[in-house]
Structures are given as structure tokens and as C-alpha cells.
């Protein structure tokens, strides 16, 4: 029985056969010419045949799909044998002696750019042209088509890492678990898996060598993948099916065993998420990522457009708290109207609140929109700025909120400087929310997307826990009992959630799928036990020990497969 160890990022125990995600299609070298043995005529015929078979495959998938997905696949299938695309590729083969791969690559690029420049609906189709182009090149090379493999039978997906775009084609009814050789605990794969409730392991070196069709056991809590599953593992996978049913329901009441209330809130990106979170029992929204409403936009949305988008989320939680984060553009989430894509070091660049330095006005207009939306709903609206580093920034943000008529301004604590000076930062605002993903990345100086740094990039790092403790202590020093919550992925880990409560965090906000697991585990400990576990984690020499020591004291985790 061969074992692969990675980092568990979403719990669950399943057995299944694996399918490898094909590697992305690489660009044919610029200037690549026809092979000496190939005539232009043969190359054109080969290109047409490849285009036809890509068309047929997409058409067959369209016939089986329904709704919007069907329409998109039908249109994409037609693009594969489009005369505009193929004529321009043929010209490159005949006139320049380009290889068929290079010719279709360049033809696709120019058509895609043309659509992009038209804007609106056309711009959204530009990526479809690039997808078709990659499929034709894969067909010409005789390698599998890029993207998540199409399949009628369920499988465990093994990939290097997933991109945000892959989420659209990931069907949780077919993909039963995710395992990646790259990525870290904060990578897109991890976030996608948690939001879909799929067991997932990241940074498991060597898994890309496992052949398609191999039967494996995946444990998303332990972070392991085993070939040739044992009888015990088969029993564990069966038991998980039962546990998963109880762990799917949260009773909407976050509390410790002794009745210390810790509201469990949801992280959402829009109205659809918010409705789903409310249905899963969320006690409010602890992080509304407003930029997710506008990621596809080239231009700033109008105040009224923004107000409508925000109201969609507020309306899902009448009488409850909704904490909205102002546009957090930059780094891995560029917004063309706010961010400079040419920064050499975007994670340390003009992002989050800092975009107000270079593009003043956008934040004022967003606050105006929030105030309009808040006036029209029954939700209790709190507003926080991302990437606050100093007390002066907090003061300035609070004055902007005041001018817009927003009653409860707050800050995200993601930059270590804000954690270290939280008493002075909190003097100017009403609350703080710890964004543990970025706080970890900055405390450990480790890019959260990088697989090789996965071990550094975990909120179990005692240094990160210490920053959480200091932020809470700063609030106590400030003296007005201003709440400090957590809205990073750390809150979704039931063991770490207990530690955070022990450190004095007042609310936990997470992907809605994790609410039930966190709520279930939190109910098994008293506040005093949580405080003891927090001291234990802080005393650990490293992240691995901190996690292992705490988990050893929480046997319910093993019992439930969390």
C-alpha cells in the first residue's frame, strides 16, 4: 500500500478511481515552421480534421447538457470549425509556412483580442476562443484535451493545481475529491473544495505520476492519499457517508459546551452565495467580498448598480449582521479600473484600501452605494477596509464612512503591523476582523499560491496565532470591548476554530459548508478548555506540533473524520 502525504484542506474520506487533469496546453514556439516532411496542403487538411473532431466532441457534450451550459457549449463547438478562425490560420500556413499548431494559436489570439475589444457579451466569449484554440492544438499533438476530463462516472480529480476558471466546469456530482501536487492551504483548489464541500488534499508530491483508473483512498482531514485501499479504509469511507449527513446541518447557534456564544457567520461573494449561506444556517455574513460582484468588469460599476448588488446580499439576512469588505482589488484579484497590472510585486503593492491612494473617488462612491443599500434593508450593515496597515489609515477610513453616513466602520487585520498596533488602530473604528489568509502570507513572507511553501503557509504557525492573540489584547487595551472576529479560511478548520475562540475571538466567519462541522466541534468544549488549547498551540515550536497537539486533545475530530 503506497501512501502520498500532502496537506488536508477539506475533510472527508472517500474511495474512488482517479483521473489526471491534463497539463495546460503549452504555446507552440513563436515562428515554429512546418516540418520539412509536411506540405502546406497536408497541414491545412490536418488542421481541418482536428478542428472537426474538436467540434464533434463539444457538440456531443452540448447534446447532453442543458440550460445555459448547453448554449455555451453549442456556441463553442461552432467556433471550433469557424471559417473566420480557420481561414486566418490557413493563410498563416500557406503564406508564412507556419506549423498548423502555431497558425491556429496566432489566429485564435487575434480573434480573441478582437472580441475582447468589443466588450460586453463578446468579451466574455473571448476566453471561449482561447479554449477552442487549446483544444485544437491538443488534438493536433495527440494529447488529451485541457480542462477537467469529461466523464459520466464519478472520479477523484488529480491535478497540479486548479484555476478559478476550472470551478465553472467542476461538477461535484462527478468529481468526488480533489488532490493536487501543487498549491497550498490557501490556494484556489482549497477554497473551491471547501465551498463545494469536497474532500481535498493539496501539495501531495508525486500524485501526478499515479495512472488514470487507479483505485485510491483519500482522507481530506489527514491530508493523505493511499493506493490499494485497505479494509479499514473502506469502512472509514462508508462511515464518512453517514457522518457527512449529520455534518451538513448547522442549527444556527454557535456556542461552546458551557454556553459562551460565538456567532458563526458566512463568507459570501454575492446574492446567490448569501441565499445559500442563509439556508445552511449562517448567523449572518462575516465577510462579503464585494469585488466578486465586479471581477469581470473593465469599468467601475455605477453607484446604483453597486447598491443593487449589495442589497441582494443584505436582503438574505434581515435583522442580522452583514460585514461588507470594500473592494479588495490587486494581487490575485485584479480589477482593471483600480489596479496596475505591471507592479513587480503585487502582493506588496497598491491593493485593498491602498487603491484609494492612486485612484481616489472609487472608495467614496462605493461607500455611497453601501449607504443607499443599507438604508433600504433590515440587515445590520458593518463595513470594513482591507489591507489597513496603520492607525492613521483606520482613522481616515472611519472619517470616509462617517461622511457617507455609515455607522459601523471597521478594519481587516491582515498586515502584521495592524495586529501589532491593534489598540491604536481600534481607537478609530468599531471592530476588527482578522483575514488569516493574508495575515499568514505576510507574517511568514510566503506566497499563498506556492506549493513548495505550503508548510510555512498555514495559520497553525505559532507566529500567526500570536498575532491573533495580540490583536485581541489590543482590543482589551483599547477598553471599549470592540469585537475582533476571524474571517479567513482558518475559521473553517474545526480544530483551529476552537483555538481561535480560546484566543478570545468573538465571531468566526467561513465558507457556509463548514458551519456545521465547526459548530459541532465547538459544542464539545468549554470556553476554559478552548483557552487551554489556545495556550497549548501558542507554546508549540512549530505549526505541525501545534496542530497535532490540539487535535490529540479533540478526539471527536478523528471520530467524525474531520
Amino acid at each position: 500500500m503506497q501512501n502520498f502525504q500532502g496537506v488536508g484542506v477539506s475533510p472527508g474520506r472517500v474511495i474512488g478511481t482517479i483521473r489526471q487533469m491534463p497539463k495546460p496546453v503549452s504555446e507552440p514556439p513563436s515562428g515554429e515552421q512546418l516540418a520539412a516532411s509536411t506540405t502546406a496542403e497536408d497541414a491545412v487538411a490536418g488542421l481541418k480534421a482536428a478542428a472537426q473532431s474538436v467540434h464533434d466532441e463539444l457538440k456531443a457534450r452540448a447534446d447532453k447538457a442543458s440550460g445555459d451550459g448547453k448554449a455555451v457549449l453549442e456556441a463553442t463547438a461552432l467556433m471550433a470549425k469557424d471559417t473566420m478562425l480557420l481561414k486566418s490560420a490557413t493563410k498563416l500556413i500557406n503564406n508564412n509556412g507556419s506549423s498548423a499548431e502555431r497558425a491556429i494559436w496566432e489566429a485564435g489570439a487575434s480573434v480573441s483580442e478582437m472580441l475582447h475589444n468589443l466588450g460586453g457579451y463578446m468579451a466574455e466569449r473571448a476566453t471561449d476562443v482561447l479554449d477552442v484554440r487549446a483544444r485544437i492544438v491538443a488534438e493536433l499533438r495527440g494529447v488529451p484535451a485541457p480542462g477537467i476530463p469529461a466523464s459520466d462516472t464519478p472520479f477523484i480529480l488529480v491535478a497540479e493545481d486548479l484555476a478559478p476558471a476550472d470551478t465553472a466546469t467542476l461538477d461535484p456530482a462527478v468529481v468526488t475529491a480533489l488532490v493536487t501536487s501543487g498549491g497550498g492551504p490557501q490556494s484556489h483548489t482549497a477554497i473551491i473544495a471547501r465551498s463545494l464541500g469536497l474532500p481535498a488534499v493539496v501539495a501531495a508530491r508525486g500524485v501526478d505520476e499515479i495512472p488514470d483508473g487507479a483505485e485510491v483512498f483519500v482522507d481530506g482531514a489527514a491530508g493523505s492519499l493511499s493506493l490499494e485501499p485497505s479494509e479499514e479504509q473502506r469502512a472509514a469511507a462508508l462511515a464518512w457517508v453517514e457522518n457527512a449527513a449529520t455534518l451538513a446541518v448547522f442549527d444556527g447557534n454557535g456556542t461552546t459546551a458551557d454556553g459562551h456564544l460565538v456567532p458563526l457567520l458566512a463568507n459570501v461573494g454575492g446574492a446567490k452565495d448569501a441565499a445559500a449561506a442563509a439556508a445552511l444556517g449562517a448567523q449572518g455574513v462575516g465577510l462579503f467580498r464585494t469585488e466578486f460582484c465586479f471581477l469581470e468588469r473593465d469599468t467601475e460599476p455605477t453607484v446604483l448598480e453597486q447598491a443593487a448588488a449589495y442589497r441582494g446580499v443584505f436582503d438574505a439576512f434581515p435583522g442580522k449582521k452583514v460585514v461588507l469588505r470594500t473592494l479588495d482589488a490587486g494581487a490575485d484579484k485584479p480589477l482593471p479600473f483600480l489596479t496596475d497590472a505591471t507592479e513587480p510585486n503585487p502582493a506588496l503593492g497598491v491593493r485593498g484600501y491602498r487603491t484609494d491612494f492612486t485612484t481616489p473617488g472609487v472608495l467614496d462612491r462605493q461607500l455611497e452605494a453601501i449607504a443607499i443599500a443599507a438604508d433600504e434593508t433590515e440587515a445590520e450593515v458593518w463595513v470594513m477596509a482591507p489591507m489597513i496597515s496603520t492607525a492613521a489609515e483606520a482613522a481616515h477610513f472611519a472619517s470616509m464612512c462617517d461622511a457617507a453616513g455609515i455607522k459601523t466602520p471597521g478594519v481587516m487585520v491582515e498586515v502584521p503591523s495592524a495586529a501589532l498596533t491593534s489598540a491604536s488602530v481600534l481607537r478609530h473604528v468599531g471592530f476588527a476582523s482578522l483575514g488569516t489568509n493574508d495575515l499568514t502570507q505576510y507574517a511568514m513572507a510566503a506566497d499563498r499560491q506556492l506549493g513548495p511553501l505550503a508548510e510555512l503557509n498555514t495559520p497553525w504557525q505559532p507566529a500567526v496565532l500570536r498575532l491573533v492573540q495580540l490583536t485581541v489584547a489590543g482590543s482589551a487595551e483599547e477598553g471599549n470591548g470592540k469585537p475582533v472576529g476571524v474571517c479567513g479560511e482558518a475559521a473553517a478548520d474545526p480544530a483551529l476554530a476552537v483555538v481561535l475562540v480560546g484566543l478570545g475571538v468573538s465571531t468566526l466567519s467561513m465558507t457556509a459548508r463548514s458551519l456545521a462541522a465547526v459548530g459541532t466541534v465547538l459544542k464539545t468544549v468549554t470556553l476554559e478548555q478552548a483557552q487551554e488549547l489556545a495556550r497549548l498551540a501558542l507554546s508549540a515550536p512549530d505549526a505541525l506540533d501545534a496542530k497535532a497537539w490540539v487535535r490529540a486533545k479533540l478526539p471527536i475530530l478523528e471520530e467524525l473524520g474531520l
Partner: protein
Amino acid sequence: MPERTATIASRSGLHARPAAIFAEAAGESPVEVTIAMAGSPADDALDAASILSLMTLGAAKGDVVVLRAEGDGADAALDSLVTLLETDLDAE
């Protein structure tokens, strides 16, 4: 050369699903059909069977386009394509 004018009836214009349906129908006709905005030179006409050409044409609801084709069956092909353009395909 036989030609017809047609007024785009689909609500979303000649994009998305209506464009796909029209391109497919044009591709199946026995003759090559071109499409251009009314009033633009015939030299600028695009291949009506190309969904990407239709998308770059950017014809909206109410716009008038000109279809042209030559050869056996051109008239019948043009007539059926005009009917298609003058149907609200988004409503189906």
C-alpha cells in the same frame, strides 16, 4: 447576385444563441451566404456561417442586414435564412 434584406428580431441581437442557430443554418445551406449591415459595401460582407464573424458584426435587434448568395438554390436558401433572422430566437 440574389440578395435580401432582413431586420434582426431576436431581443439580444445577433449574439449568443441566435447567432449560433443562424450560423449553423447558414453552414448547412447549399451555397455560400454572406452577411453585411445594410448600407455597407458588399466587399465588407462576412461569411454568414461563421459565428465569430456574426459576433464581430454586432447586429442588434432592429438592425437591418443584407444577405447575399449565388448559385443553384440561392433564392430558397436566402428566403429561409431571412425567416430565421426575422424570428425572435431568444423567445424559443
